[in-house]
Each structure stands twice: as structure tokens, then as C-alpha cells.
């Protein structure tokens, strides 16, 4: 031990001597650090044994082997097992001699279990670990921690933290390196900045130091110069003081070997200092600006775009390739050319199913396809590098496919991608005058399925025969491969099968003929499909050539859409499911064993015909079961998760204020009703289906939330609980108070006594607000009106609700309409 101590003293003398000669640079500091390593290894070997493995880890400047004369020796003593008495003894036998050797020690004592959840929230510790090296003991313990520090998430935290630390440190020096008495460790352009440049490059892109204003050679030179200065300062101040103050500048200049009179020596020293500080500052600025930023697992964003960090990992995980393009979309940038070329070279090695092996991967694909800025550009990149064609061999079939006709101006693949670009422009409101179509897009529940339909609408053109049937066949194959839900498959199939239908009608049929409109309404059945078909038509026509979609054609298409929409929403109550209805027969034919034909007939006959188009068969059977054994005051309700929303289905017998009470119950839990349908059959059975968002996550966070909600719903419907009281408390909550100074858009109420044979129709467009549906429907019930059907939708912040109502079994008189609408206005303005 004595030998070791004397060796440390000799090393200290040697470093002091080197400093005095102006030679206390990297090599001298490394020799001193190595000597401390030897000393620690000796201590480690001689210390009492612990139960498990352990290691001494050097951190910070000591980790970098740049230990100065009076620097802190930063060490982490790490134990594999629990730290008990034996381990504490071992610690003492290592630390005490270090203190005896006059070292200032910064120590941490930890066990591996402490790193089970690595402190990602402590980036300064993560930063220290970057320079960590095992000095003595079992180095594999350090390796086990280091793996976690190398994660993109940890790197992202480190980078953010480092940038913040740099900013804070520079602020202390007024953000300038022109300091007359510089701190050569902390000042801008000094040693910490050199290490920062290296750290940023190490965790992002090592080549950064050789690019742009950054200069590896000048950085090395500056570091050497600064370390030599620091060694002198430690020697002269006899402590860890790094400030090159006026008093020490003359002596330092002399020891550094500058010639001339003392004043000239100092001027030359400081001149060199500023030259190096400037080089360091420029390097730091350069790497900060160009450093790739970790954006997702194994992905960084660099100046030229998104790329993988670990190419080997990416190569064996093709399911992660889509995330490249998703990250590019999210950060509104491109994928780097190098990465696209890398994909192109490897694309043939992976079969289509390798890209979407798990449900999460398939969900990620659909999320990726949601129309937004940049989608066309990303899909084009995927197409150009062959990825799109590999993921979808059906799409590859139309690669550069030329179809000779008088109007198409692009190859089939580019035409297809342009349709998606046009949709993207609707989403971003990039084309003035098309906001009305953009609003339709905002209203879609599954816009990604529209994009999927566009992607496949013309794939059948790979052959010369009827392309529509072939496109449908190929799309069905793709959707089964992706295991999409049957509802989604049916929707995409419908859109592709009829993708030329609406343009044919709009531009070649007499759209003023109500029969033409009725036929289109019959074909689409529900508004969602109409909106999707209208948008598909618009973007498809526009992508044929730049002159195809004239404002005149746009207007024709819009009018056809409006007339059909009005037909669907205003007249659908008149068209009822009849006994021999083909759709009903199909439902009966496919019924499960526990549902009888008579039950289906009793439940569905007399409901609006659109019911059969709104719900798939499985849902209809569920509704039939829900409507069984119904007695007055019974409420059969079901609550289930549907994507990011919830769906409430209620079957009960009609009674006054029923609809209003259900809406009130939902609102009293803070639920925001997004869309819904309320309908009644001739037997007085009511079926209400609401989709809503649970903004406060009540159902998700409370284990008994569903039961609580359904209990309250039952109590409200049966009249045992006053829903208005429940709502009032919530409306008074600060969370729901209207923002001061914000004038709400006045509601618009339009009454229509013409469109439907049986009902007066109230069309309401109002700013969405808590309890809106409850208040409006309550006013309707107060006027003695019966709600036959309701169609609920939202468009951004606007609620759009269509009520089909009667009073004493007949349409309302003009006077009754005037009273009712005035009352609704008063209710909404209150």
C-alpha cells in the first residue's frame, strides 16, 4: 500500500513538473489518470471481499483520463448484490486510502438493482455515464448499464439536458467567449464546450466533428492548449481553480513559453486563447445545429432527414421501416437519400407479410395513412425506393403503368399518388375555395380507409380488361392479409367498386332529377359513405390531368352531394324496413342459433331502412338480444370501447324526455357526444346508439366506472334521478365555464316541413357544448313533441344535429315550429 501511495505522490510530482514546463496536456494527464487507476486497482484487490461481483467505475474527467492535479476523482462503486456490512467495509477500504492520498473524491455507491429502472429523468447522471469506464473489478456490470444508456430515448434526454446545461452555463458568462479573465473549464469556448462537442457527436453522429464549421484537428489543438493552461492553474493556485485571472496570466504565459516582454507574453497568450475559444465555439454551434435529434426508437432526424441509427437492427426488423416514414411525417421532413437507397438494396429480402406481422404494426399502417401534410411526399419516397410495392405487391403491378386514353396525363401509379396529394391538400386547406370539401374530410371517422381505397382504386389497371372488378379483387386480398375488420373491408370494397359512379352521375346525368338523387342515396345508404365517395370522386377527377376539375365540375359534384345528403338526412325516416326487405332477409339468413327470425322481424321491421346499412349483422344480432324481454321502465344498455371512443347502446321503451335524459346522463359524466343515431320502431321500442369521447377518462380510470355510469343512466331514465341537477353542478364547474371575451357562434336552426312525409325536421348547427343535445331535446319534449329519429354528428367544434319530430302523431304547425325554435334559441343562449 505504501508503495502505491508513494507512486501516487511521484505521479503528482511528475504532473506538477510537466505543468511547470507548459506540458501538462493530454499525455501528462493520461499518465496521471493511469497512475490513479493502478492505485485503485491495488485498493480493490486488497479490500475485504464482498458477497457478489463489484466494480469501480471512473466518471467525468477521470473517466476521460484527463485528471488534473486537483480535480475531483469521480467514481461509482457498483455492487451486483445487496449492499450489506461486507460491502460497506469494502467501500471504506477503498475510499479511506484515496482520501489519505489527498484526493478530493466524488463518489457514488450503488447496487445494480438501482439501475433496474435507469434514471432517464436524471440526464446529468446519464451524461456522466457516457464517459464511464471500468477501472477495477467486474466490467460486465458497467456493460449491463451502458446498454440502457445507449437507447435512443436516453440519448434524446441526454441531448436535451446537455443543450440546456450549455445554455445555462453560457448565460453565466453573458454568452460570450471574449472574457478577459476566462474560466478555462466553464466559459464559452473552453474545456466543457470541447467535451460537449464530442458528446453530442458521440450520441448522434460521430462524423459531425468533421463536417461544416466543426474541425476535429482544431478541436484537438484547442483541448491540448486548454488542458496545459489548466494544469498550470491547478499548480499555481494549489487547488481546483480554473480561472485565468489577471494575476496568474503573466506567470502562465511565461510557463507556456511565450517570448517577449511580460506584457507581450500575456497578449500572445490571450490571443491564442481567444483563437482556440473561437474554434471551439464554432464547432459547438455547428454540431448543435446539425446534430441528429433522436425522434423515435432507432431513428434520428439529421439535417438531411430521418434515418436509422442502428442499421443492423433495422435490417432484421423490417416491421420498423414504416416508422421511418411516420417519423418523417411527424417532423415534416424527408427520409434521407442514403436510407432510401439502403432500403432499395434490401427490399427483395423481405416478403410483404414481414412488414406488418403484429396487430400493432397493422394499426400503425392505418394511422400512417391518415391524410395530412406530407403524406404524398412520404408515399412517393416509399414508392420510389420500392417499399410501397413490396408492402403491397398489388400496387407494384401498376408501377409506371401507361394507359393510353385522351384524358389521363400520368402513369397509373402517379395518378394514384396524386389523388392522395389532392386529399392531403383538402386536409390542410391548401386550395382556396375548397374548404367545403375539406370540412367533409374533417368529419370522417376513418379517413385512413379513404386513403387506402385511393391507393387501391386503380390497381386493376395492370391489365386491360375491366379494372374496377380487378381492383376490388386485389384490394380484398390485401385487406384479408392485413386482417382488417369486416366493416372496414366492406367500406373500402364499396368505395373502390363505385369509384367512378358519382362522377358519372354528376357530369353525365340530370342531377336535377330527384330520381337520380334517390338512386345515389340508395346506393350509399349513409352519409359517411356519401362523403367518402364524394371526396374520392373529387380527388380522382383532379388527378387525371390539371384541367379536368374545373370550378364548374366542382360545383356540379357539390350540388349532387348536397342533394343526396339532404335526401339521406331529411327523408330517411320515411323509408322503413319492410318484411320482404332484401337486406333484412340477408340478416335473417346469417343469424346465429340463439336469435330467431321472428325476433329479428319484431325488432327491425319499421326501423328506418338505413339501419341495415349503418350496422353490420353482428351488431344487429346484439341489438336484438338487447331488446329482449323489454318491460316499461326497463333499460337495457351496453357500453363498449370503439377505437379511441366509447359506444353506448340503449334499448328501452319510448317515453317523454327519454332522448333528453340519455344525453343528459352522458353529459353529466363529461362525455362529449361525437355522433349517434336514435330511432324508434312502430312497437315503441327505442334504439339509441351514441359514440362519445370520455375526455376525463372516467371509464378508463375507474374500475367500477362502467357500472356507475349504467346505474346512473338507469336512474335518470326511470326518473329516480334528476339529470338537470347533475348537469347544473357540472356546468358550474370552472372547467366548463365559457371563456371570457369569446363570443360563441350563434346557433342556426332550420325547420323543414316539406322533405319528409311524416316528420317535421329540425336541423340544428351550433357550437358544441356540454349538455347541448340534452337542452335542445328537453325543449322539444317540453313542447309536447315526440322525437322519432335523431342524427348526431360533429364537425370540428360544430355540432350538427337533425331531429325528426311529431306532435300528437302529426307534423308541427307553422306556429308550433315558430314557438319551438324560439324556445330552443332561448335555451341555447341562456
Amino acid at each position: 500500500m505504501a508503495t502505491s501511495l508513494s507512486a501516487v505522490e511521484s505521479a503528482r510530482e511528475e504532473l506538477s513538473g510537466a505543468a511547470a514546463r507548459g506540458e501538462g496536456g493530454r499525455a501528462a494527464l493520461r499518465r496521471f489518470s493511469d497512475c490513479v487507476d493502478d492505485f485503485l486497482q491495488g485498493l480493490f484487490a486488497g479490500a475485504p471481499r464482498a458477497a457478489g461481483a463489484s466494480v469501480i467505475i471512473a466518471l467525468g474527467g477521470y473517466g476521460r483520463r484527463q485528471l488534473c492535479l486537483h480535480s475531483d476523482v469521480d467514481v461509482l462503486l457498483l455492487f451486483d448484490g445487496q449492499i450489506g456490512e461486507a460491502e460497506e467495509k469494502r467501500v471504506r477500504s477503498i475510499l479511506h486510502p484515496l482520501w489519505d492520498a489527498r484526493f478530493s473524491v466524488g463518489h457514488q455507491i450503488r447496487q445494480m438493482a438501482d439501475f433496474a429502472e435507469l434514471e432517464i429523468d436524471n440526464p446529468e447522471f446519464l451524461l456522466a455515464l457516457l464517459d464511464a469506464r471500468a477501472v477495477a473489478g467486474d466490467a460486465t456490470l458497467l456493460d449491463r448499464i451502458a446498454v440502457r444508456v445507449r437507447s435512443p430515448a436516453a440519448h434524446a434526454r441526454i441531448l436535451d439536458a446537455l443543450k440546456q446545461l450549455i445554455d445555462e452555463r453560457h448565460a453565466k458568462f453573458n454568452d460570450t467567449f471574449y472574457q478577459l479573465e476566462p474560466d478555462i473549464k466553464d466559459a464559452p469556448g473552453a474545456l466543457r464546450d470541447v467535451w460537449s462537442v464530442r458528446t453530442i457527436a458521440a450520441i448522434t453522429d460521430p462524423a459531425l466533428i468533421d463536417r461544416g464549421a466543426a474541425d476535429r484537428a482544431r478541436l484537438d489543438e484547442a483541448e491540448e492548449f486548454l488542458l496545459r493552461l489548466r494544469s498550470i492553474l491547478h499548480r499555481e493556485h494549489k487547488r481546483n481553480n480554473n480561472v485565468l485571472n489577471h494575476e496568474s496570466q503573466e506567470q502562465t504565459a511565461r510557463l507556456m513559453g511565450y517570448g517577449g516582454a511580460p506584457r507581450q507574453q500575456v497578449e500572445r497568450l490571450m490571443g491564442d486563447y481567444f483563437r482556440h475559444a473561437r474554434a471551439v465555439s464554432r464547432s459547438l454551434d455547428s454540431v448543435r445545429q446539425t446534430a441528429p435529434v433522436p425522434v423515435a426508437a432507432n431513428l434520428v432526424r439529421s439535417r438531411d432527414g430521418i434515418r436509422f441509427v442502428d442499421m443492423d437492427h433495422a435490417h432484421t426488423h423490417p416491421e420498423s421501416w414504416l416508422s421511418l416514414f411516420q417519423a418523417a411525417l411527424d417532423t415534416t421532413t424527408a427520409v434521407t437519400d442514403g436510407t432510401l437507397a439502403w432500403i432499395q438494396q434490401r427490399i427483395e429480402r423481405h416478403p410483404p407479410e414481414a412488414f406488418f406481422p403484429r396487430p400493432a404494426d397493422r394499426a400503425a399502417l392505418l394511422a400512417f395513412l391518415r391524410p395530412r401534410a406530407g403524406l404524398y411526399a412520404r408515399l412517393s419516397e416509399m414508392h420510389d425506393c420500392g417499399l410501397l410495392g413490396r408492402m403491397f405487391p398489388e400496387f407494384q403491378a401498376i408501377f409506371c403503368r401507361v394507359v393510353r386514353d385522351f384524358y389521363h396525363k400520368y402513369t397509373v401509379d402517379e395518378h394514384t399518388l396524386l389523388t392522395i396529394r389532392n386529399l392531403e391538400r383538402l386536409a390542410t386547406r391548401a386550395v382556396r375555395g375548397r374548404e367545403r370539401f375539406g370540412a367533409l374530410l374533417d368529419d370522417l371517422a376513418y379517413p385512413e380507409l379513404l386513403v387506402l381505397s385511393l391507393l387501391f382504386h386503380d390497381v386493376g389497371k395492370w391489365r386491360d380488361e375491366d379494372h374496377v372488378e380487378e381492383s376490388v379483387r386485389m384490394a380484398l386480398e390485401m385487406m384479408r392479409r392485413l386482417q382488417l375488420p369486416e366493416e372496414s373491408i366492406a367500406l373500402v370494397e364499396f368505395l373502390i367498386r363505385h369509384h367512378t359512379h358519382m362522377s358519372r352521375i354528376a357530369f353525365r346525368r340530370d342531377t336535377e332529377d330527384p330520381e337520380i338523387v334517390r338512386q345515389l342515396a340508395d346506393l350509399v345508404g349513409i352519409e359517411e359513405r356519401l362523403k367518402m365517395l364524394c371526396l374520392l370522386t373529387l380527388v380522382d377527377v383532379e388527378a387525371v390531368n390539371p384541367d379536368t376539375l374545373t370550378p364548374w365540375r366542382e360545383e356540379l359534384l357539390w350540388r349532387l352531394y348536397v342533394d343526396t345528403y339532404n335526401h339521406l338526412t331529411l327523408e330517411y325516416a320515411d323509408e322503413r324496413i319492410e318484411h320482404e326487405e332484401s337486406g333484412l332477409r340477408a340478416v335473417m339468413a346469417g343469424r346465429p342459433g340463439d336469435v330467431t327470425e321472428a325476433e329479428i322481424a319484431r325488432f327491425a321491421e319499421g326501423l328506418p331502412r338505413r339501419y341495415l346499412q349503418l350496422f353490420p349483422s353482428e351488431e344487429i344480432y346484439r341489438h336484438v338480444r338487447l331488446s329482449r324481454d323489454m318491460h316499461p321502465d326497463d333499460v337495457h344498455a351496453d357500453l363498449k370501447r370503439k377505437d379511441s371512443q366509447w359506444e353506448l347502446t340503449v334499448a328501452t321503451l319510448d317515453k317523454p324526455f327519454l332522448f333528453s335524459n340519455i344525453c343528459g346522463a352522458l353529459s353529466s359524466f363529461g362525455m362529449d357526444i361525437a355522433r349517434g343515431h336514435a330511432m324508434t320502431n312502430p312497437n315503441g321500442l327505442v334504439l339509441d346508439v351514441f359514440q362519445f369521447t370520455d375526455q376525463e377518462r372516467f371509464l378508463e380510470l375507474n374500475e367500477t366506472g362502467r357500472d356507475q355510469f349504467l346505474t346512473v343512466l338507469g336512474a335518470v331514465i326511470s326518473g329516480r334521478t334528476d339529470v338537470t341537477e347533475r348537469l347544473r353542478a357540472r356546468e358550474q364547474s370552472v372547467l366548463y365555464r365559457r371563456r371570457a371575451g369569446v363570443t360563441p357562434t350563434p346557433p342556426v336552426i332550420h325547420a323543414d316541413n316539406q322533405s319528409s312525409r311524416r316528420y317535421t325536421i329540425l336541423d340544428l348547427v351550433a357550437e358544441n357544448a356540454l349538455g347541448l343535445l340534452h337542452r335542445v331535446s328537453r325543449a322539444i319534449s317540453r313542447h309536447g313533441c315526440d322525437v322519432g329519429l335523431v342524427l348526431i354528428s360533429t364537425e370540428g367544434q360544430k355540432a350538427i344535429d337533425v331531429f325528426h319530430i311529431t306532435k300528437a302523431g302529426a307534423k308541427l304547425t307553422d306556429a308550433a315550429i315558430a314557438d319551438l325554435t324560439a324556445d330552443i334559441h332561448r335555451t341555447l343562449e341562456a
Partner: protein
Amino acid sequence: MKLIKAIVRPNKVDDVRDALGRVSLPGMTVTEVRGHGKQKGHTAIYRGKEYDVSLLPKMQIEVVVPDNLVDDAVAAIITAARTGEIGDGRVFVIPVEQSYRIRTGERSEV
């Protein structure tokens, strides 16, 4: 020599073109136009809000014909474009003083 200008329903253009072809008048100019006559358009309601649709989309067909074919051409257009409802359109016959071919500069009869 006359210029026949016909304003017809958009879906009737193909029928008119075929009908003119049958009376040996294959050439025509077609323009997308908007306007109203007696039909005057109407006010449509969309999502509770009224919007003006008073200018209706129509197609304008122009064809220059020799005097001896004017009656046949007008009859062909009217027959092809008629539905019997308001909004079927109009046909105008306008005298043409001279006609030149741009390619050759020569004066032509039609």
C-alpha cells in the same frame, strides 16, 4: 351562314352532339357555363344553412352552319336536349358575316 348558340343541360351534350352529327354537322365548340333563365335557380339548405344556387351549371354549344341547315340543326338540338321540364335551355341563331380558316387564311363558307 349562322352561328347557333345553344345552352343545354350538362347531361344533354352527348345527345346533342350525336343529333348534330346525324344532320352532317360534326364540328362544335362546347363551353362550361353558369347562368339562369326562367328557372332562376333556387335556395338550397345544407346542414341548416341556406346557400344560393341561383346560377345553374349549363353547357354552351356553338356551331356555325350554312343557311340551308339551320332549321335541321335547331330541330336536332331541341329534340335532343328537351326533357320537358323548366331548365332545358335556349337556342339562339345569330347571323355570321364572314368566316376564315386560320391555317390557310382563306375565306370559307362555313
